[in-house]
Structure formats: C-alpha cells, structure tokens
C-alpha cells in the first residue's frame, strides 16, 4: 500500500468516526483543529486498529495528536508486521 493510499484510508476512517465531511480531514489536520477529544481519540484508534488489523500500544497512543501521527504510526506497525494479518491489510 502506498503512503498516499494509507493517508486516504486514515482520512476516511477519521471522517466517518467524527461524522465530518472527508475534505475537512486533511493529511495536515491536528486532532485539536478537528475538535477530537480524548474519548474521540480512542474511538478513532479502535477504528484504525480494526481496519488495518494492528495493535497500537497505549504509550504510542498517548502521543498521537494528528492525522499524520496516525498515518506514520500505522505505516510503522505495518512495516514491522506487528499483530498484522496480511490478508486483512490487503482487503
């Protein structure tokens, strides 16, 4: 999966979880700009974990504050193959 494709999917997940139009969620958006609070944040991580079949550790989760943080974190987890099921990632 290309970096662009990953970014698109993360943007779509966040837009869906927050009930926002997709164009509002850009690769450069911060959670603060999108009014994403701590509870919204864990809900987004849950959606992202389900979509990519990865497990985001709690300490990493605490440092995620933007769309880019999510994309970079997922890219790293997919590269490491952490908890990732390749079929699910491809699907």
């Amino acid at each position, binding site marked *: 999966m290309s970096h662009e494709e990953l970014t698109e999917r993360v943007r779509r997940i966040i837009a869906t979880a927050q009930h926002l139009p997709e164009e509002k969620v850009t690769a450069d958006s911060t959670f603060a700009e999108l009014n994403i*609070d*701590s*509870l919204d944040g*864990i809900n987004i*991580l*849950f959606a992202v974990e389900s979509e990519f079949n990865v*497990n985001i*550790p*709690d300490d990493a*989760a*605490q440092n995620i504050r933007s769309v880019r943080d999510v994309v970079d974190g997922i890219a790293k987890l997919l590269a490491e193959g952490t908890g990732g099921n390749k079929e699910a990632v491809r699907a």
Partner: protein
Amino acid sequence: MNARVVVSGVGVISALGHNRQEFWESLTAGRSGIRPLTSISPGLLRFENGAEVRDWDPLRHFDEKEAGLLDRFAQFGAIAAREAVADAGVEWSAELREETAIVTGSCVGGQTTEDEGFVNLYQKNIPRVNPLTIPRTMENAAASRISLEMGIVGPTYTISTACSSSNHAVGQAFWMVRSGAVRMAITGGSEAVFSLGFLKAWEAMRVVSPDTCRPFSKDRKGLILGEGAAMLVLETLESAEARGAHIYAEVVGFGMGSDAFHITQPSADGAARAMRSALSDAGLKPEGIGYINAHGTATQANDATETAAIRKVFGTHADRLQVSSTKSMHGHTLGAAGALEAVATVLALHNGVLPPTANYNEPDPVCDLDVIPNQARKAQVECALSNSFAFGGLNAVLAFRSR
C-alpha cells in the same frame, strides 16, 4: 429535626483479604493487593495485573444452591454485610427489621454471569442461557440477598452511578437515618469486574496501567481494576449509645452533583462543587478537614484534576491537608470503591493512623499535595472527606468526624 448518625459496624472483602482486620493491616503496612491476574489467561490483554479477591471459595459461606443463585459480586456484598452486622452486634427485632434500610452500589452488577452465558451462546453455540442469569445479573442482587438473609423488610435499593455508586449509596443511607426515615441502614457496595469481555472494554479505554497503580506519582500509567465489597452499619448516635454499641466514627456530611461537562473527562469545577456541598451539609469549614481519601485513580487526568479541585476548595489549607489514595492497594473497584474507601477513612479516624498512597515514586508538579507517600502516618485528625468521581461526570463526597 436531624439526628446524628454514626458508623457502628464495618465489613470488607477485597484483594487485601477477606475481612476488616486483614484490610486494615495491609493498608497500614502500605502493602498492595495488586498481582498478576489469575482469572484471565495471560496474553489476552495489554495489561496483566489486577486486585483480585484471593482464595475465594463461595462454598465456605453459602450452600451449593445459594451459591448458584448468586454472582460473585452479590456473594461479596453478602459476606461484607454479614461481617458489618456482626461487628455492630445488631440484635434483630421485628420492628428493627422494618426500620432498617439497605442501600447498595454497583456499577456492573453480575456481568461475570452475563459474560459466561454469552460465551456459551455465541461461541459454544449452546442455544440455552441459564435461567438464573437474570436474578444473578441484576444490580440489586446483593441488596436483595442481604434482605432475604437477614429478614430486613425496610427500604431496599441499589444505586448505579459508575465509580461513584457506593458513595451515592452511603450518602443516601446517611440522609435516610439522619432524617428519621429509618433507624438503621446497611450500606456500601460490591463489584466483580474480572471477565474477559469487560476487561477488553477497559483495555480499549486505554486507562489501565501495564504495571501497577501509582496515584499522584509523576510516572503513573493508569488505574488497576479491583473487586470486592464493603458494607457499613449506620444508625443514630442515640440508638448506638442506648444499646452500648461500639462507634467507629460519625457521618457528618454528604455532597453530590454533576459536571455537565464531558462523558469521560473529569472537571475540577464539578469535583470542587461536590466537596463544598459535603462540607456545607456537614456544617464544616474547609479548615476543619485534616485528611482526604482521594478518588486518586492514577490516571493522568483524574489525579491532576482532583488536585486542582482540592486547591480550589481548600486554598492555602490544601498545603496542610494529608491526602492518600488507597486504590494503590485495593485497586479501583468501581461501584464498590466509595464503600471500601469509606471503611478505610472510618478506620483511619478510629485508629489515628492515615493509610498511605502506595507504589509512589516521584512528585508531580500538577499533583503537589501531601499524598502520604508509601508509609502510613500516625495522625489523629478531627474530620475527613472521601471522594468519588464517576465517568458520566457524577460526583459524590462523604464527610466523617472522629469520635
């Protein structure tokens, strides 16, 4: 005409043991009951520790038929109530059974029973669910069991306000005795949290510590879940004195309120309002308080917000307060938390020893209170508060006076 209300009996079962002596010995030794979980196989969760009740054999306390009717949380509630009533030396008469209330708290009731039934149904494809699931699961199962067992026919009900449940319960019972609505009350809370489904939901909240519970410490990483029950016998001072009962402490105030702020984030204003309300109900000035048993969950958000709330209410007196979180030892027992901590507070006033905040490593500038790190302290304080702040923004605070 308000009556004065006292605590004449206490009972407790928790990770710190099966009775009040073991509870108090652990608290004053600063000994934590947090251990690797035995009820859940390792590797299924991101966290591996909890404050479980050890060596629990319901058949030591109930016959097989009774035990089958009761979820673990209701068993704990009944055991704590038996101990509290025996401790108070209550002698039942028909009149007293009519004039006694039972008010209990529980956050999730018999969820371990529910979890088991759903595993059978959804995972093992067993198409029938045990018919005792409903009476075992209901949040009032412990209150009903205590009523049935002791023949108490007065007002009996259960309050469910997440982590504030049993502070709301004790507060209601206190007000009922104070107003003369009842002569005596058995009140507290019980909880059994350890099922995989429920723990998975806590894992997803990302507030459970991967190691232990370090309230107010800079390196705190979250709460540790616990289970158990605590019950208190409340009665009027007049009634306790007339029958020559042993008195632990006086209940002097109860305050409650709602944040109307956020479903999970705490609010210093809401917590402060509940503490002020308890002080006002007790007719106490902030300077009258010497000790606070804090909500102190060891999440980043709670401990900083609770510190800010205490500073709002107490001003410069906050620097003279002694504050500890006994959750560092018995874990966060959700709907039983207020009851366990009320017992800890009452015993602290009675014995002139303040339990510490265990597992404490380093000061945090946003939690700059005297949190009684790691070692119990000999100190006879006059009055104390016990704080409970729940998800949903619901706050409940109790005030006690030593006797």
